[in-house]
């Protein structure tokens, strides 16, 4: 028994090594959203073309809320996916033009195409804070009652759409039936 205590450091070390090994494969950078299963925060802002918008202007069905900016390169990379979704009418996409300049945003939409039903203009990032946004691009999946059900951070390409969003949407549809 006395000799066994000399093995204590070895045991502790083995446990630690396993822990460290496990830890190598964790994603420490993606923050889980605090607003899952909570209603979308209230807002009264303007959209990119100057019309006033608020929560009542949001679609009455499941939709995507995409945070984007003309300065954001990954937003350009995921842009084709949103264009396809909006052209095929698969799901409405509402944009949040986050901390951008109105002229630059309008130019960006003109040059690249506008997949959004409308884009809420969040000039000072205040609405973004209420959503817990920490960097564009981010995309929220919002259900028909205006409750946030899922958030994806960074580029939403076709792979992400198929692997993460389609199953989530199917689940939501099954729930409401």
């Amino acid at each position, binding site marked *: 028994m006395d000799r066994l205590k000399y093995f204590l450091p070895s045991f502790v*070390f083995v446990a630690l090594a396993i*822990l460290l090994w496990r*830890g190598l494969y*964790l994603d420490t950078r993606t923050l889980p959203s605090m607003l899952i299963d909570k209603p979308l925060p209230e807002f009264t802002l303007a959209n990119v073309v100057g019309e006033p918008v608020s929560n009542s202007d949001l679609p009455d069905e499941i939709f995507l809320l995409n945070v984007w900016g003309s300065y954001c390169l990954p937003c350009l990379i995921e842009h084709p996916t949103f264009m396809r979704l909006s052209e095929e009418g698969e799901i409405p996409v509402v944009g949040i033009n986050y901390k951008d300049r109105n002229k630059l945003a309008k130019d960006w939409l003109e040059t690249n195409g506008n997949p959004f039903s409308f884009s809420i203009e969040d000039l000072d990032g205040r609405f973004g804070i209420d959503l817990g946004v920490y960097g564009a691009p981010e995309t929220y999946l919002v259900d028909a009652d205006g409750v946030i059900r899922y958030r994806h951070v960074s580029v939403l390409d076709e792979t992400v759409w198929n692997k993460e969003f389609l199953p989530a949407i199917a689940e939501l549809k099954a729930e409401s039936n």
Partner: protein
Amino acid sequence: MIPELGQFSLILAFCLSILLGTLPMIGAARGNILWMNLARPLAAGTFVFLSISIGILAYAFATDDFSVQIVAAQSNSLLPMQYKLTALWGGHEGSFLLWTFMLSGWMLAVSVFSKSMPIEFVARVLGVLGLLCVAYILFMLATSNPFMRIVPLPPGDGSDLNTALQDFGFIVHPPTLYMGYVGFSVVFAFAIAALLSGRLDAAWARWSRPWANISWAILTIGIALGSWWAYYELGWGGWWAWDPVENPPLITWLLGTALIHSLAVTEKRGVFKSWTVLLAILAFSGSLLGTFITRSGLLTSVHAFASDPTRGVFILGILGIAVGGALLLFAFRAPLMKSEFGFGLVSREIFLLANNVLLVVSAASIFLGTLFPMVYQALTDDLISIGPPYFNAIFGPLMVLLILILGVGPMSRWKRTSTSYLVQQLAKVAAVSIAIGLVLPLLVLFEISFAAIVCVVLASWIVLSMAKDLRNKIINKETVSKGLRALSLSYYGMQIAHIGVAVMLIGVGLTSYFSIERSVLLAPGATVTLGSYAFRFDGSEPIRGPNYVADQATFSISKDDSSLGELYPERRIYLATGTPSTEMAIDAGFLRDLFITLGEEKEDGAWTMTVYVKPFVRWIWLGAIFMAAGGTLAAADKRYRRLRQRKFAKDIAAKEKLDSGNLQPASS
């Protein structure tokens, strides 16, 4: 062609270290003197080839050879020469070559300064270091080759060194830090050699102490340099962030501090043997852990290199084999090393035991805080942050306890000390310390702060108890100077190092609670006052540097109407990448720092800026310097040199006896 020579040299070093890691150790186990004697030349050879390797890499940086991947990633043709060379350790591959080079340097030092140790011991020590070298070079060749080339089209210019690294701090901090950090491999190798031979006596402790002390001293300076650099680099006067990459050197340092104290006990009293060996293994693990965290992307940090789980797994493997193997060896061999001597409840051994417990608990707590976010995420799938508020709350009280013991320990006697003696010696010291702590902050700073009082009380406690001990030791000599000369270097080393603790404590305490700052928008000619200092903004003008353009502002600072000179903060844009950066201006003083950080230019030449007054902040690093000096002094003790001379003389005498054929037994 030349970079390939560098890689070839690295491979040669690899081969030599394989030989070094095997032959001498086998020789030691079998009593084969020839193989054991191979250790020193093999160590020297490994050093030579690693020097060539890193030299060639430095040459590639100096000559802007952008066909070498890391030169293209870290350097740029516009970079001033000193930063071209130091860009070598700006990325993972180059810095790991530096790490390995440091190890070979220590190996060389051991092979040179080990003449008084038996050859089996030296063979084993160098063998262990050689095995570490094998692991590190294999890691480089397999996953992180610094000589990787860009084919077929090398870029015309490099991506430039991160602007935060284009600074003097970057020239000195990493090499010093690595030197100290890697130095703990030596005392680790000493511990393994002791375990392998099954013998651990006072001689082993005596041999190990200088190596442990000097590594510790260098690590102290390395960490202090990092803190100093962060302070003036980052611009808001922070000097320690408890970042996941900063913490492992501190953990190693704390374990190293426990180790140097424990070694002292083992040498003088023959107790704590297996504990000291375990500490040596743990301190070394701290250094490997640091490398692991920095290079594996395990934890999020501003200091971390680009993350790669493959590299992480490899280093974890090295950790597993080196530390796991060492701990298993410890489990099997340590029970054979029983202490022969005892000690009573109130004795110097007990106080040093308490010192060790507190230091190891502090190290373990910081370790816990550093890794806990990862544990939390593994368990709950949620993210949590642990930062300065947690670490300060835990570390502070532990240090307070440690400092209380610091006053008593040196005064206590080995084996048995009378409690009443200690109380009698220190009661007045305690009372005076408390008095000073209550009065001084009030007089100097005109306000009552619990934290300031605690810091001053503790610092006085250290200084006064030390003074009392000194007085006790020289009071019986005829003159003061005779008394002072009779004291050993290692005693002075201890006192200077302990004063360093007091000095650092004052710096930490007062700067943390009494720094003031103000952010303002100033037009040219306007003045902002902070405390008793006035900062007058005299306008800005554009200037040009070697690889940047900048707006340089001029400030005149004064205190109570007497001028203190001018400061020139800048706002730079580096030409290679267009990265902006703010450049602070500091008026450094013994009792306080004043500094200014520029923000942005607004209309009509007005600038936003922040001014700071930070009292006693330099004392933090001054304390570290004292500690390092004290630690080095203790290792330079005459005892060690005298012993070598005596042994040398004895060897000569024995040899003469043998030669003259006179084999009579020594007369009684």
